[in-house]
């Protein structure tokens, strides 16, 4: 099947409270049937995620983020270079996303998207099993989804 130019990729674990917001956003956006846009969800990381990006011109990643000194529900727009300091840093069984993107650019440069954007929302709880989000995060879900859609239209 021929791919569209743009991919929205919701990442997270839908069973882990706020970690699932990327998946929730992807499921809402797919319902809108936006022309020229593919929407995928992934409970994955590293090379898997990088492989899903191959062949697109632009990828918008929707994901939860957990940083010190940020309020739950805060929406952040991040670019590849914002993760550059972690390229050679922590990595799990495979590699982390920034290393995976670097690996993609190293081994399949012509297939990698020129533009990779991350729309992230600060999570409150990513360590309790549950399918719904915490109150502050749930309240910001529609703005989070709007931020992703705005990025598609850019």
């Amino acid at each position: 099947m021929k791919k569209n130019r743009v991919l929205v990729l919701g990442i997270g674990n839908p069973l882990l409270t706020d970690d699932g917001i990327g998946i929730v956003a992807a499921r809402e956006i797919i319902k809108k049937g936006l022309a020229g846009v593919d929407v995928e969800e992934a409970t994955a990381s590293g090379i898997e995620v990088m492989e899903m990006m191959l062949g697109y011109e632009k990828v918008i990643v929707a994901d939860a983020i957990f940083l010190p000194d940020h309020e739950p529900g805060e929406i952040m727009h991040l670019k590849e270079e914002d993760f550059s300091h972690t390229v050679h840093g922590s990595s799990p069984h495979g590699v982390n996303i920034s290393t995976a993107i670097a690996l993609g650019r190293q081994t399949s440069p012509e297939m990698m998207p020129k533009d990779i954007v991350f729309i992230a929302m600060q999570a409150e709880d990513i360590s309790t099993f549950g399918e719904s989000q915490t109150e502050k995060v749930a309240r910001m879900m529609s703005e989070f989804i709007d931020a992703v859609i705005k990025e598609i239209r850019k």
Partner: protein
Amino acid sequence: MAGPIIFDQKVKTDKKRITIDPVTRLEGHGKIDIFLDDKGNCINAYWQVPELRGFERFCVGRHVGELPVLTNRLCGVCPAAHHLASARALDAVFSAEPTPTAHKLRELFYMGQYVHSHIAHFYALAAPDFVLGPAAPANKRNILGVVEAVGVPIGAEVIKHRSYGQKVQEIIGGRATHPVFGIPGGVSKPLTEEERVHIETMAKSCVEFGKFTLKLFNDVVLANKDYLGLITNGKSFYQETNYMGLVDENDKVNFYRGKVKIVSPEGKELAKFEPKDYLNYISEHVEPWTYMKMPVFKPIGWKGLVDGAASGIYRVGTLGRLNVSKGFTTPLAQAAYEGMVKTVRSLGVTGPVHHTLAYHWARVVELQYAAEKMLELASDKSITSTDVRGKIGEPKEGVGIVEAPRGTLIHHYKSDKDGICTGINMIVATTNNNAAIAHEVKKNAMALIRDGMVSPGLLNMLEMSFRCYDPCNSCGTHLLPDGSRALEVRIIDKDGNVKQVLKNF
């Protein structure tokens, strides 16, 4: 290509506690605390992981039929293993024997997981230590550095074959990372002839890639005297434990089904049992300093963090499987296994291989087996039969055990008469290895850190001691997979003050 950098300059530290937190190239956040005495010698070390909460509570009250797709989200690393362990548990819960075709399809799917997982571990996690060396600069000691060293075409082959493993899982399992096909008594969809041919083609290529990887391991690791010495020195990276793994009726390794076999440090069979009887042989010890339980061989029990025949600690995973078995059912893997046995026998090893770094060796042998078995199953035209589900009975209690790439994985469910889950217990591979990993870290820290002399390379060697096990802390503590957690190492003095922190995030 320049040779690997195995040793680096050590500097004297006046710190009394070294902490590695979070561990690089390890799923789930881990932390190592190293305690030093006045002279700077390591006197204790703890490997710790954090916890996610409430998985059992989350599952109880749901229909047991949902568990294969819920438990596989426990982990972004080996969802296929959880999915199959869950399907095997449901076979038992519903007294449902899968048809021969269903067994073949599940096993073929699982070979995809092994190819994918073992390639990822060997090239992304282990190869940086072998190709570049444990003391290579940290910003090079990763898969990007490996690809730089071996060349982009080989890097592309690694990515290609890893993705073949993923593709096989997607074709059979319905989805690449979180499969949906395993159901009580079988699978939800048959394989078409076109799909079979596609998998057969990929499998042929994976067999060749398995040969290439074995040769690479021989050339880069075994032919290097320093590495071979590191693997076989018998002091660091060494512990004499019991071993556990699944075997078939001929005592050959089987990843998908069979009996669980446990052998002693001398190689004597201690037990061989059906999955449903696991509680007679395994008990879960709790230590106050870690969330993760420490299972032991129940008839011996917990004797502290020690190895030897008097200890109940056992090891699972690639080396564990080789140590309990008589090798493999496929020719190339069997030849590689025999070559490995011959090499270690020539070094004077008489029983099981206790050298922890040999986990990597066993892993590349298993990669060859998974590729060959994938080809064997995909070449069998009867695998496209549509008879993919057996009859199911009334729900009750059931246990399913498979070998995850990193070791024995146990799912145990209780159901009421309506199929509602009333209880769940899981012992995952990393938990099975937990006591051995904690012991390994402590033993190696005590061997490696003397007179306060530390270096990044030396601390990385400490990490290597547990990276061998391919530990995945995310499901070890029923913790979930964002896949980006990491490790911190802290050095602590005799008064408990943190003097130095090394982290990778």
